[in-house]
């Protein structure tokens, strides 16, 4: 099955924030009240009602202000840590088309995914008691449309399409891709101008060690421990037996 993907070339981004707006419009997300924090960036980051956000990286180089932008949202990892830790069957799932889908109806708001995401994407909505994030416009892509953010991007910084051909195109242009193989391959990839960490992205994204230990080591150990206890009890009962306080002893 062809994989849906987005390739975001940050050098083409003009920070118009149309992606932010179209995301809100398509997904019917309310505006978030924000305050000025010394930057044109607005709002300050992702939230349960902001699934796409343009990060502003403002630096001064040789006396000149440099602006670099990163349109950011869920990266839709192949080996998604959020899907791995989600305890509710079907609440978070990786679909065959490359989408990491969060089913609002099934989410119980346990927030395990928030702790597991290496990109800090999922956010909790206190009023609704659920977690929200970008679903790669699953309702659009299922009907052959592109994602709302890619559709609206005027400078073609965000391109939506088949993952393999997006990668081929970028490589043909001699561009380095962030996310081609990370976490099994991300469905949202970047062509960056600086190091990933400059944009606040992890250089080597991975499942947190604590999360891996929690579910891959501790959980099976639990069954070993409880199983051994039950076995020890049965053995004790058979081999040594109860302490009788009258009669036999």
């Amino acid at each position, binding site marked *: 099955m062809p994989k849906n993907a987005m390739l975001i070339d940050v050098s083409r981004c003009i920070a118009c924030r149309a992606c932010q707006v179209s995301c809100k419009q398509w997904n019917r997300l309310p505006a978030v009240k924000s305050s000025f924090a010394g930057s044109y960036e607005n709002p300050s980051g992702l939230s349960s009602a902001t699934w796409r956000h343009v990060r502003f990286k403002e630096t001064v180089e040789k006396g000149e202000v440099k602006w670099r932008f990163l349109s950011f949202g869920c990266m839709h990892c192949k080996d998604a840590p959020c899907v791995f830790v989600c305890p509710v*069957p079907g609440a978070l799932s990786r679909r065959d088309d490359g989408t990491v889908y969060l089913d609002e109806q099934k989410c*119980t708001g346990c*927030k395990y995914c928030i702790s597991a995401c290496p990109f800090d994407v999922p956010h909790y909505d206190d009023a609704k008691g659920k977690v929200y994030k970008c679903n790669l416009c699953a309702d659009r892509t299922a009907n052959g449309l592109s994602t709302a953010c890619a559709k609206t991007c005027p400078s073609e910084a965000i391109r939506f399409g088949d993952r393999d051909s997006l990668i081929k195109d970028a490589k043909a242009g001699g561009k380095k891709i962030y996310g081609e193989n990370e976490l099994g391959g991300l469905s949202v990839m970047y062509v960056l101008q600086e190091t990933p960490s400059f944009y606040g992205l992890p250089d080597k994204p991975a499942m*947190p060690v604590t999360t891996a230990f929690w579910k891959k080591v501790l959980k099976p150990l639990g069954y070993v421990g409880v199983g051994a206890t039950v076995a020890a009890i049965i053995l004790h009962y058979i081999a040594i037996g109860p302490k009788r306080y009258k009669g036999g002893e």
Partner: protein
Amino acid sequence: MPTIERHTVKERGVHAVHAISFIILLLTGIGLYDKGFFGLTRLFGGVDWSRFIHHWIGIVFIVFLFMMYFQWKDEAAVFDKDDKEWLRVFGGYLGKGVKAPPAGKFNAGQKMFFKMIFWAGILFGITGIIMWIPQTLALPKTIVQLSYILHDMILIGLVMGVLTHVYLGTLANPGTISSLFTGQVDEQWARHHHEKWYKQVSKKGGSRRL
């Protein structure tokens, strides 16, 4: 068969509420421990109800943990020479006919379990609150991740401990379980299992609790 009162109504009540809350917490919690147990959440009307019950019964669990601590600390949170010796021979449980040193109202094994329950319960509560409202507490992610690990470690340890505790109170020691329901135990049972306690109680007039 002469009996004596081992636990008062209040003692039995506190223990029962604490035990039942533990079972409810276990059943509402392990649905989220492993997808294999997810079906258990249906017992309580779905995963949302399970979480709701888990949070609030958790508070009951902590309240009764402290009540239990204060009702038994004078007898369970003390350690003497006999207790040391009791632990050394594992209370005589590891062989037939091994004699354990005389115990007070609680033997050294029960005292260890009492200590374990107390600290595990407190850590359960702290990590549980962190898992419940991490955003409100604005804690770093690492702390939240460590809370998940600690909460599950305590869970595993306590399930192992409680299974042993239940075995020792039932199959392994006939005549014990009545102390949780009627509060009465056979006098011979008391002399055999808790000699020092039995002597204290009988000195004070037989069937009355000290």
